């Protein structure tokens, strides 16, 4: 009897110990917030970004989640539509932080909305990872808890200016969403390098983000007889510019800065109308320019959502893997400052789709800025084809960025 009770007591102790151990290794929920343009003109960038975060979260969860000690964190993504509007974005982020308890904020496709959130995020117990928004000042404000995966617009614009000058063009007409500061910044940097190469900008014509009839501006440009056209803007208005330039018989080489997928352009313009157009942008996702991870991403995204990923969507996909690595390095999901610090010390995650240029071996420089190579892509027979890399020195630009105050 005594023996039986001893065995029984031993079994009970073992069960208690096991259950205590199981309770310690609990599966926990990690809320990741996404604020992005899910409707409106900027949704062409925001929706693919939100989906990219969702895809990456599903992959991380399927691989067992994020293990910290005895805890395993499964990621839950909460996405809000900020319509690329500064007020909406501020409200979305407030809801994510105050109501949903999210410490990690991803997405952010568009500069105006992102700039508004960046203006107060430093005071929050949160980490902000910016995606496609390209306004330079986002990473010049010295915000410790903010990093960005996409390089600033002028980093790419300068490389584009050198490239177009190398093609022998002397008179370039610009048409674009020039009231949007990062597009204006791209054109300014383009012009600086283009003028160095002996060229001149003959006119700068603007259109609004919702404009779809650019024939008056293109008629004016046609009369100026430029030898090339530079188009900067969101995919949809840019596609209308390409279509209407052909319709008006503006037969000059066309360069652009848009980051749209084939599918997005073909909703507006025919492949014939797009033929020969160049897109001068960071070396984002195209099947020709990407590696194995990029091809897997393209395949998984297409299978999961039934549409192809946009070229810029991996900025958001890579955010989630950078966040995972930073959490693992910091060993906590509670201490946002530690995670923010760990982000700036990370190497590029092995799952990253974009081709980042590490600065001192790290994905993000001291400003919290990541850099990719820049590339020249050309529309050939219905698809963007990677033609060549553009000259871009990330270290120099990083130093330049550090020298800017605010």
């Amino acid at each position, binding site marked *: 009897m005594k023996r039986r009770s001893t065995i029984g007591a031993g079994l009970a102790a073992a069960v208690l110990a096991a259950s205590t151990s199981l309770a310690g290794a609990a599966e926990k929920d990690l809320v990741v917030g996404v604020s992005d343009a*899910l*409707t*409106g*003109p900027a*949704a062409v960038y925001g929706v693919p970004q939100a989906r990219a975060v969702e895809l990456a979260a599903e992959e991380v969860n399927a691989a067992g989640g994020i293990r910290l000690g005895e805890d395993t964190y499964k990621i839950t993504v909460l996405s809000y539509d900020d319509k690329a509007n500064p007020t909406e974005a501020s409200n979305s982020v407030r809801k994510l932080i105050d109501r949903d308890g999210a410490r990690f904020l991803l997405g952010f496709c568009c500069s105006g909305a992102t700039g508004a959130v960046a203006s107060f995020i430093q005071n929050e117990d949160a980490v902000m990872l910016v995606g496609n928004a390209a306004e330079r000042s986002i990473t010049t404000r010295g915000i410790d808890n903010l990093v960005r995966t996409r390089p600033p617009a002028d980093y790419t614009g300068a490389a584009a200016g050198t490239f177009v000058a190398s093609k022998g063009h002397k008179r370039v007409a610009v048409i674009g969403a020039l*009231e949007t500061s990062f597009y204006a910044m791209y054109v300014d940097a383009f012009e600086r390098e283009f003028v160095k190469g002996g060229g001149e900008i003959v006119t700068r*014509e*603007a*259109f*609004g983000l*919702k*404009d*779809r*009839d*650019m*024939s*008056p*501006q293109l*008629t*004016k440009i*046609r*009369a100026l007889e430029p030898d090339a056209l530079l188009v900067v803007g969101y995919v*949809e208005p840019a596609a*209308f510019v390409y279509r*209407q330039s*052909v*319709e*008006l*018989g503006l037969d000059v080489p066309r360069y652009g800065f848009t980051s749209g997928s084939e599918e997005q352009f073909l*909703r*507006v313009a*025919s492949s*014939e*109308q797009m033929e020969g157009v160049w897109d001068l942008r960071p070396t984002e996702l195209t099947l020709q320019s990407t590696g194995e991870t990029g091809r897997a991403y393209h395949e998984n995204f297409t299978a999961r959502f039934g549409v192809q990923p946009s070229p810029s969507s991996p900025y958001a996909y890579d955010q989630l893997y950078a966040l995972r690595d930073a959490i693992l390095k910091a060993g906590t999901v509670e201490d946002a400052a530690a995670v923010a610090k760990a982000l700036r010390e990370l190497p590029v995650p092995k799952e990253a789709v974009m081709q980042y240029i590490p600065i001192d071996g790290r994905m993000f420089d001291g400003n919290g800025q990541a850099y990719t190579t820049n590339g020249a892509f050309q529309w050939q027979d219905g698809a963007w084809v990677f033609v060549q890399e553009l000259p871009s020195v990330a270290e120099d630009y990083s130093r330049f960025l550090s020298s800017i105050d605010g």
Partner: protein
Amino acid sequence: MLELVQQITNGVAIGSVYVLIALGLTTVFGILGIAHFAHGSVSMFGGYLVYVLVASQGVSLWLAIPVALIVGMGVGGLIEFLAYRPVRNANHINAFIIALGLTMMVEGINLQLFGADQVVIPTGFDRVFEIAGVTIPETRLYVILAATVLVIAMTAFVEGTKTGQAIRAVAQNRDAAILMGVNVRSIPLIVFAMSTMLGVAAGVMVGSLFAIAPGVGEAMVVKGFAVLILGGLGSIPGAIIGGLVLGVTEALAAGFLSSAYKDVIAFVVMIVVLLFRPQGLLGGAK
């Protein structure tokens, strides 16, 4: 000179769309006294319908357009019967509020049925014609021609048919029209059907030339009312002239002044016209 002619041609194409929108608005306003704000949203519904029929269902564009026009007539009749008829004899503010509510409702229905993405109606019209150095894309040419045909057809209907005479009689003096035996209950129904059909045609044009998206209908109706005021409230020739003037002014402003302020410049022109002719370009003096 060539640039000027090209800009005018560009303006005539977009002006043709404004003409159709304004014609629908002016007939409803001139005959029934209703500021039908939902007209733009209903027009875009027609554009969306053609897009769905062509792009998703594989229906020929030439079949999809008449189907949408007929559906548009039905929707117009329903709007009059269900929304405006019950307040026909009430204070004007009631119809005004219904018009605002209807706008929100139709926008919401469009959003639910067709989504938030912009859509472009695939026409396959890729040819470009060149006449004496002026280029006219095929779609724009068809838009101008279609608008011309619709304007002529509407004028013939209003001026040359018994129903048209009845409509004009109701517009001039409703009580006298009743005494003359005109069935005034059916006139609003016919006017709304006709007006919405013109709006749907404009929606198809916008969707083919540019794109349809949430908010486009509201923007179009603002332009439509601007044309209405410019041309003269209730005046059919005024809507035609006003639409073309607005379209051409916008194109010239964007081409020769600043594209950033093309809307502002167009409205400045409207204000200047009204300073000298408060009744609008072709409105009757009171």
